[in-house]
C-alpha cells in the first residue's frame, strides 16, 4: 500500500496524469488496499461464488462424457475427472432419439415467435414514442403492465383459448402465444431506443416528403439496429427457455420443444439415463450460450435496459 503511494508521489507526472479524466481502467482508490487484503475481501469470495455458479455446468458436461461404469461408481474412479471420455451418450441422444427433431422444433418456434414479436413491437414502439397519438402514454403503461403478467396465471385459460381457435398441439399454438411474453418486453425496450434517436432527423425527412413508413424503415430502423439485436437475442432466449406453455399446449412427441421433451420423453427408469439426460441438457443450452458469447453486450443492455427504462 505505502509502496504504491510513495511511487506515485515521487513521480509528479504520474500524479498529474492520474488526476486527468481518463478511461474507466484507471486505478481509482483501489491502491488503498494491499494485495493480501484484496485476496481475502475480493478474490476469495468472488472465486467461491463463481465456483458455485459454474459447478452445475461442469458436472453436466462431465457426466455427459463419462462412460457408464464411471457414472455411478465414485469410489474406484475419481468423480471429478475422467480419463477416457466417451461420446456414447451424445451419440445415443442424436441418433437413437428424436432429439434433433426437438432441437429443430425449438429453433423454428423461437425464430418465428421472435420475428413476429419484433415486427409487431417495432410498429407499436414507434407509434407510441413518435406518432404520439391520443392516449399513447396510457397504451405505453398498459404494455408495461402486460409485461408483468406471468405465464403461470395465464396458461389455464389460454389452453381453452388455444383449443377454441383449433391450434392445440400444433407449433402455431406456441408461435402465437410466446409473443404475449415477448411483445411487452421488446416494445418497452425499443421505446427506449427510439427515444434516443434525434427527432430532428425525422422532421427533415417529413419536410422532404417522406411518409411515416419511409421514415421508419429508412431512418429509424437503421439507427436502432443495436436495440433490435438486443431485443432479438433476449426474445430468442426467452422462447428457448419457455416451459409451461409448451408443456400444456403440445402433447404429441414430434412437436415438443427441447426443455419439455427432455423432461417428459427422455426420462426413463434406466440407471444410466443420467449420461444422456446431461448430454441433452448440455446440447440444449449450447446454442444459447454460443449466441450469448457473441452478443454479451447486447444481451446485458437488453436486460438492464428493460429494468432501467
Amino acid at each position: 500500500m505505502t509502496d504504491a503511494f510513495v511511487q506515485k508521489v515521487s513521480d509528479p507526472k504520474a500524479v498529474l496524469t492520474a488526476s486527468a479524466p481518463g478511461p474507466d481502467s484507471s486505478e481509482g482508490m483501489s491502491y488503498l488496499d494491499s494485495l493480501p487484503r484484496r485476496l481475502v475481501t475480493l478474490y476469495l469470495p468472488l472465486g467461491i461464488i463463481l465456483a458455485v455458479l459454474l459447478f452445475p455446468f461442469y458436472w453436466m458436461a462431465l457426466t455427459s462424457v463419462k462412460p457408464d461404469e464411471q457414472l455411478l461408481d465414485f469410489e474406484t474412479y475419481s468423480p471429478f475427472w475422467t480419463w477416457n471420455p466417451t461420446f456414447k451418450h451424445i451419440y445415443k441422444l442424436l441418433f437413437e432419439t428424436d432429439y434433433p427433431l426437438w432441437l429443430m422444433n425449438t429453433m423454428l418456434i423461437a425464430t418465428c415467435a421472435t420475428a413476429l414479436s419484433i415486427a409487431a413491437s417495432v410498429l407499436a414502439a414507434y407509434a407510441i414514442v413518435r406518432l404520439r397519438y391520443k392516449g399513447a402514454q396510457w397504451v405505453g403503461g398498459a404494455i408495461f403492465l402486460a409485461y408483468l403478467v406471468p405465464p403461470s396465471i395465464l396458461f389455464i385459460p389460454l389452453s381453452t383459448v388455444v383449443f377454441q381457435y383449433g391450434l392445440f398441439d400444433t407449433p402455431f399454438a406456441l408461435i402465437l402465444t410466446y409473443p404475449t411474453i415477448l411483445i411487452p418486453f421488446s416494445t418497452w425496450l425499443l421505446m427506449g431506443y427510439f427515444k434516443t434517436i434525434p427527432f430532428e432527423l425525422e422532421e427533415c425527412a417529413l419536410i422532404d416528403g417522406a411518409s411515416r413508413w419511409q421514415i421508419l424503415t429508412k431512418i429509424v430502423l437503421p439507427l436502432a439496429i443495436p436495440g433490435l439485436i438486443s431485443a432479438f437475442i433476449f426474445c430468442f432466449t426467452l422462447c428457448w427457455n419457455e416451459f409451461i406453455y409448451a408443456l400444456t399446449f403440445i402433447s404429441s412427441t414430434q412437436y415438443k420443444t427441447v426443455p419439455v421433451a427432455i423432461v417428459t420423453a427422455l426420462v426413463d427408469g434406466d440407471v444410466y439415463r443420467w449420461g444422456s439426460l446431461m448430454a441433452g441438457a448440455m446440447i440444449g443450452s449450447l446454442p444459447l450460450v454460443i449466441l450469448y458469447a457473441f452478443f454479451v453486450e447486447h444481451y446485458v443492455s437488453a436486460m438492464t435496459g428493460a429494468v432501467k427504462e
Partner: protein
Amino acid sequence: MTDIVLKSRLAKRPIQEPTAWDRLKVNKNWLGLWFMVPAAAILILFLAYPLGLGVWLSFTDAKIGRSGVFVGLENYEWLWDDSTFLLSVFNTILYTTVASVIKFAVGLYLALLLNERLPFKAILRAVVLIPFIVPTVLSAIAFWWIFDPQFSIISWSLKKMGLITTNIDFLGDVWNARWSVIFANIWRGVPFVAITLLAGLQTVSPSLYEAATIDGATPWQRFRFITYPLLTPIIAVVMTFSVLFTFTDFQLIWVMTRGGPVNATHLMATLSYQRAIIGGSLGEGAAISTAMIPFLLAAILVSWFGLQRRKWQQGESND
C-alpha cells in the same frame, strides 16, 4: 436549369386541395391505430382475453372438454378448506421470501465485488450471467442429478470430508426438498440481480467515494450513505421483478420435485397445473391462479412507485 425543373413540375402537378384521404394519411391518431394493430391483436387475443377468461373460469365448474356453469364462489370456498392449497400458499410465500432476500443479498454483494478493479472484468461479467442464459429446465435437470438421493456428488464429497455418514436425501425429505429448490432458485436468480445492480453501480460517480474517503468514511459508511441511497430506485425495480418471477415460478419445481414429497414443495403455480391440466378441473385450477393476482398487484404497485421515484430523483418531470 432550376427554372425548367420547377416549370415542368408545376405544369405536371397543379396545386390541389388535400383530399380527406390525404388528411387521413397524415393523421396521427389514424396512423397510430394501424401501427398498433399487430401488437394489440396478439395482446388482446392471447393475453387480455385469457386473463378475463381465467377469472370467469374460476367462478365455474369447468372441466377439460366441458364448459362449466357459474357456481359463484364455490371454488374459493372449497380451496379455503383445502389443506393442500393452504400448504401451497405457505410454500409459495416461504419460497419467495427466503429466495428473494438471499438473492438480493448475494446479488448485491456480487455486484459490489464485480464493480472493483479486476483483471478480465468483461469476461467475468459474461461468465457470471451464464446461469441466467441456460434454460431453467436444463439447469434444473442438472440440479436434479446433483441432488440425487444415492449418487449425489454433494453427499459423496461431505462423506469424504467426514462431515456426514449417510447420504443426504435432498429431494425426499420435506424440509430438505424445500431448501434444495430454494437453493436452485437462488442459483439461477443471483446473476440477474447482480448484473442489473452492477449496471446501476457503474453510474455512481467515483468522486463521491473519494470525497467520502477524504472525510474519513469507513467502507460500511460509504456503502450505507452513498451506494445504497443512489441504488434504491434500481433495487426497487429489480426486486419487484425478482419477487414476481419467484412467486409465479413453475419450471424449477416441476422438474425437480413435481411438488413432492407429500406436497411439501407445491407452489401455487404447480398446484394449479396439477389440478387443472392433469386433474382436469379447469375451474379449480383457475381459482388457484386467480388467487395469485392480489400478490401480483402488490408487486406491480411497488414497481410503479419505484419507477416514479426514480424519475424525480433524476430531476425529470413525470411524463
